[in-house]
Every structure is written in structure tokens, then in C-alpha cells.
């Protein structure tokens, strides 16, 4: 009985440490309301050269290679928020499931953000304009690299 409990504890510790460990080669970034900063934070994204970036919290991290001669963009669509007379509200609210349009060179496409407000794309290197309704942002994609971009879809006034 004691042996079984010991083995279970050991297995639990191994699992915990494995989950908490850095994913090999990936760097974590999070958006602080103004810019992306290196480190772990809510609503973060994992980035590695020549790999598709992975929003934090999607479970197991898969190393999906970028297609040849492409770079990646990890776009976070969010609403700026603030205030709250009775309770402080979060400053960044991801916009989930919203349609975003992207144009650049010969490419014109539309896609939808995930539940964390992210849109992950692999694209040929070049200059692109991303639009969410009337809001837009210019981004530059470099081969093998990930461009972290945020697009503010306006704001929510609380109270």
C-alpha cells in the first residue's frame, strides 16, 4: 500500500514538472495592454523560429513547422477596457470568434479569431494590412520568424 502511494506521488511529481517545464526552444510572450512582453502571462503565446506559434492554454504544445518560405503572425484582437465603480475590470478583453481580413501582395483572405482572441497564420514574407471592421494594423512578415501583433477593436467603458 505504501509502495503504491509512493509510486503515485512520484508519477504526480513527474507529470507536474513536465507540465511546468519550458517547451524546448519556444519562448513565451504575453500582451500587457500596450505591447507584447517576454514571459508568462494570461493570454500569452509561445513562439519559436520556423514553427507555428501556439496560444498558451491549448493543452499539449505541438511543434508544427512553418511551410517553406513563410513566416508567421500571431495576431491578438482585443478590446481595451478599464474602470468599474464596484469592481476593477480587466484591461484587455480578447475578442473571440471575430472575422479578420488580411491583405498584402496577391493575398487577400479572411479568418476568425480563436477563443483567446488570437489568429495564427503562416504567410509569405511581405507587408500586410490586417482589418477588424474599421480598425486596421500594418504588419511585416519575415521568413521563419513570428510577428507578434495586437489589433485594438475599440474599447469598452465600464460603468
Amino acid at each position: 500500500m505504501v509502495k503504491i502511494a509512493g509510486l503515485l506521488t512520484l508519477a504526480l511529481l513527474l507529470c507536474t514538472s513536465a507540465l511546468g517545464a519550458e517547451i524546448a526552444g519556444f519562448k513565451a510572450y504575453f500582451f500587457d495592454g500596450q505591447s507584447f512582453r517576454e514571459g508568462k502571462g494570461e493570454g500569452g503565446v509561445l513562439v519559436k523560429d520556423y514553427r507555428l506559434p501556439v496560444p498558451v492554454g491549448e493543452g499539449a504544445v505541438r511543434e508544427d513547422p512553418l511551410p517553406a518560405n513563410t513566416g508567421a503572425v500571431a495576431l491578438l484582437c482585443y478590446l481595451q477596457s478599464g474602470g468599474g465603480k464596484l469592481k476593477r475590470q480587466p484591461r484587455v478583453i480578447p475578442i473571440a470568434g471575430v472575422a479578420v481580413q488580411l491583405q498584402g501582395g496577391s493575398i487577400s483572405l479572411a479568418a476568425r479569431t480563436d477563443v483567446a482572441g488570437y489568429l495564427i497564420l503562416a504567410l509569405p514574407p511581405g507587408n500586410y494590412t490586417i482589418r477588424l471592421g474599421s480598425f486596421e494594423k500594418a504588419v511585416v512578415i519575415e521568413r521563419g520568424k513570428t510577428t507578434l501583433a495586437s489589433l485594438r477593436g475599440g474599447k469598452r467603458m465600464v460603468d
Partner: protein
Amino acid sequence: MIRTLRVVTLLLLIVVPAASWGAALDDYYLSRLANAHSGARSLAAIVPGQSLGPDRGQTIIRHQAWLDWQKLQPSTRKTLAKVMARPTLAGERTCTPVGGHFTIHYATSGSDAPDSTDANGNNVPDWVETVAGVFEYVYSVEIGKMGYQAPPGSSYDVYLEDLAPQKVYGFTTNDFTGVTSVSYPSYIEIDKSFTNSIFLPFAPITSLRITAAHEFHHAIQYGYNAYFPSVYAEMTSTWMEDEVYDSGNQLYDYIPDYLSYSDTIAINGPMDNSNSPYGRWVFNRYLAELQGRTVVRSIWEKLGSMPAPSSAAPDSSNEIPIEPIIDSVLKGNFANNFFGFAKRMLVRDWSSHQSELSLIPRITPLAVNSVHGTVTPTLSLPTAYTFGYYRYTASTQDGQPLLINLPSLPAALAVTAFQVDGSTATGWQEYPYDSGNQRITIPVFNNDVYLVVCNNGGNMAAPVVVSPAFPADSSTILDGTNLDANVLTIPQAQPVPTGSKSSGGGCFIATAAYGSYLHPKVAELRQFRDRYLMTNAPGRAFVAAYYAVSPPIAKVIAGHEWMRAAVRVLLTPLVFAVEHPWLALIFVLALAGGVGWRWVSRREKRTAGASASVVG
């Protein structure tokens, strides 16, 4: 066998409550939202050149996730982002008064539904009509009389929701597509009733009025320029509360959050983690008294003329700074007007809202010193557009002067002194700074002296009233509490269909117990009702009887967490039977068999006992 039955019963007693507690809600949202929108799916969803239509089903689920947010586990909340879409309400109805400017959206079932009392019998809840009347009055003041530009759109959408769990009075959020490069439509969400204790001590109607005046001005602000500075938006919306409803007076509660830190929080500083942005409304009152009330409107009109920040600008630059705007509207006099504001906060010579002056708190001095003769304070106030006071009391009241020497006054600081003087109209006498001698002289130092220190770039001029003056608006300060009853015609609505007439109705008790119409267990019960009860006469009769008696019971259950838990436990066997009918049948048969076997075995024993007694 009997022991086995007892063990099974004991296990059931343990398992059933645990199962009824259910993380099922988390599982439900995770399965419906997280799987549907994984990053891989986003990549796969790319459709070149094709615009995407609205995702109505997902919108409903995302909105429900938002409403149920507090009920979800932290890990689930982390996975599911908050949903930002116009709300979709259960059994949604709308109320658009004839000739009005608003459409009030309300739910007819579930937690968002407002009180359904309908005294005038027009099938529109009375509270919804009250909301419509209040918003229409707010419109008549802010747009009709004060002259602000109406927000874009022909009818403005207001949604009633249960926001108390989030501890929120209301939200105003812009749509994603503007009518110009800077002017955006928006929508308002407010609490469905304001009856929750978190809104005390304000009566529900007071909270509604304050919230309507406040949020609708945000709607106006989005119409001018969605890139407005949030802090000035809150300063204006909070100030507007008392311009529309003078007796509300909630805004005074927030002044200490600013005034207690007026030496560190800049009047134009960004939003912070306190209520100071709401408290800073008092600067607008000063400007309105000095320059005329339309100075505030002019500031918003100026903001409306500003271009959107460059799309290449960093996110930190996505709001238009307010200080240059105010300075431009005041024709370069922001600094001396701010110095005048610092003085008024001490002297309190306000000219409007006279009956409420006691609600404006006094500022605690940065330091209090008992002195005599000469003092040489060292002043430090590094943040622009901040101010504070130093108080000097006379250690000896001998009529000698007080000399406040300031030989190394920082260039950014403006200073002046006031002495308490009952012979003047304000009760104060000002003694300005003498730049030649670098000192302030109080000729007779018997009463307390306050040194006013203000970081405004060192501008010590008296506050300049801009010429030509800002035009007067057509509104006098009135308390709208007797003026906002709905006067517009409310179109008669169709009766809300009840569950007995339509299979689309809700399971009231189950909804109350599980907390959400969309809870998977409630959905299963609905499905069972529609598939097995509504398809035959006895079933329909049962459903009709259930819907006749259940709404008041459900209301009571919804109001007590312990009742909700108890009903969930009671419903668990039913839900289990609906989910696993064959297992349930086997269980019932086994139970019946066990009871039967026990009955037979007892009977045999009794018979055997009786035989023995005959033999004996």
C-alpha cells in the same frame, strides 16, 4: 443481499450529490467553444477573399459563457476568453417606443429577465417601460438641451442583463465598424433591475438614472471619436450624472479617490486601478462654472475633429491625449485654469449645486506645522497637473507677520497662500507669491495659513475666462427625477408564449436549479420533454400542469443557493434516467427485485415462525 442494497444506497447518497454539483457547465463550454475555435481550426478556416457571415449559434453560447463566467472554474475561464459580441438574450423581446430614440432589449426567461409585472397590461414589463422613459429623458437633456451630437444610428440599443454577478452597473461598447474613420456606433448593457444588494444604498430607480445618464454619454463620446481618452470620458460621464439628475449624488462618493492623492495623480493622468478617474469629474464642474457649461461640449467637439491615430502607432498611442485638447479649447489657458481649480478646492467658492457643497470633501494637507516668523519649506511635486496644501498654524498669536521664503522654487510649481479670514465673503484672504523677493508674506499671522502648491508649469496667473465666452446651452440644472416617466406610446406586444403552449419554453425549476437555460442537464430535460412528453396526451397534460405551477417555485429556488443545490440533488436521478434510460431501467428493476425478494423472504420467515409456534 440486504447488506448489498444498503451499500448501494449509501454509495448513491454520496455519488448523487457530488454528480449533481457538476463541472458539467465547464465541460459544456469547453466542448462547444474551445474545440470549435482551436488555433489549428483558425488556420484551417482561412478562406481567401471571402467575407464571413455572423456566427449566430456561437454568439449565443459565447454570450451565455460570459453570463456564467463566475460559475466556471478558473482553469476554464483561462481557456475560454471573454466573449465580445452584442448580447443575445433568452426569449429576447424588444421595446421601441413610438417616436423615441432607443430600443430596449430584454429577456423573457432565465436570469436576465427583468421583473415581469405588467400593470398596464400591454405585455411589456413595467420596468422596461421605466427604462425606456429614463433613457428618453436623458436623451432630451444631453442631446436636446445640452446640444451634444447624437450617437450614430436611428435607434440606440440598450440591453438589460443580470450584471450583478460581475459587479457592474453597465457597459458601453463600440461596434467594430465606424460610420467615419473616428465616429463609431455603440450599444449599452445595463443591469436588469439594480435590485441586488451591491447597488445599495441607492434605490433601483436612482441607480438606473445614474447609469443611463453616465452610459449614454459614453455613447455620445463614441460618436464624436472612438479614440477618446478614457479618463476624460469617465470624468465627463460622471459629471453628467449630476447635470441630468441633480439629486442622485453618487458621484460625490468618488471624489476622495482623487482628492486624497491630488499631489500624485495628474488630472489628465491615465486610467488607474482606483476610482480616481470617476472622482476627477469635479474638474469639469470647475471648468463649467468658470467658463460656462458648454466648455465641456466644446472639448468633445474638438475631440471629434481629431484624426484617428496612425494604424502604425503602438497601442499605447491609441488614445488622443486630453491635455492639448483642453488647452486648445481654453486658448492656451489650461495651466492657469488648473491653478484656479487647485485654489477652489481649498476655498470652496463654488457657484452651482450649492445644496451639495458639504458632499465635496476637504483635502487633507500634506503637512501641518506650528510656526512663527519665517518658514522656508522645501517643495517637491514632480508630477504635472497635481496639487497639494501645506498648513501653518501660529505657535504664538502675537500679530507678527509670517514670511514663507521660497528661494529655490522649482520652475514647474505655482504657489499662493490663503489665510482664514472671516471678514471676507469667502472666509479666505489670498496672499500671492512675490517673485521679486521669492516669498509670500502674511502681514498678520494669527489665523491658519494654507500654502497652495500646484504643478502646472509655474503659471501663477489668475484663471483666464476665454473670450468670446462659450455659448450657453438651453438647459438649466434640473433634477429629472420628476420628469422621466415614460410619455411615449409603447407598442402593445404579443403575450410571451408559455411552455404549455410551445415546446420552445424553458424548464423553469431545472433552469433555476442549474443556473442557466443552456446548461447541458437542462437541455437534456427539454429534449426529453419534447420527445417523450409532448408527443402524447398524458405527457402534454403533465407539462401543462408543470408550467402552471412551476414559475413561482422556480423564482424562490433561484433566490436561494441551498435550494438550488438541493433541487440539483433531487433532479439527479431524473437526469440520470433521461441520460441512461436502459441503465435506469435495470437499476429500477434490480431495486424492485431486491425489495420484492426482501418482502418474500420476510413473509417466508413469518410463516415459518407461525408454524413453529403451532408446533410448539
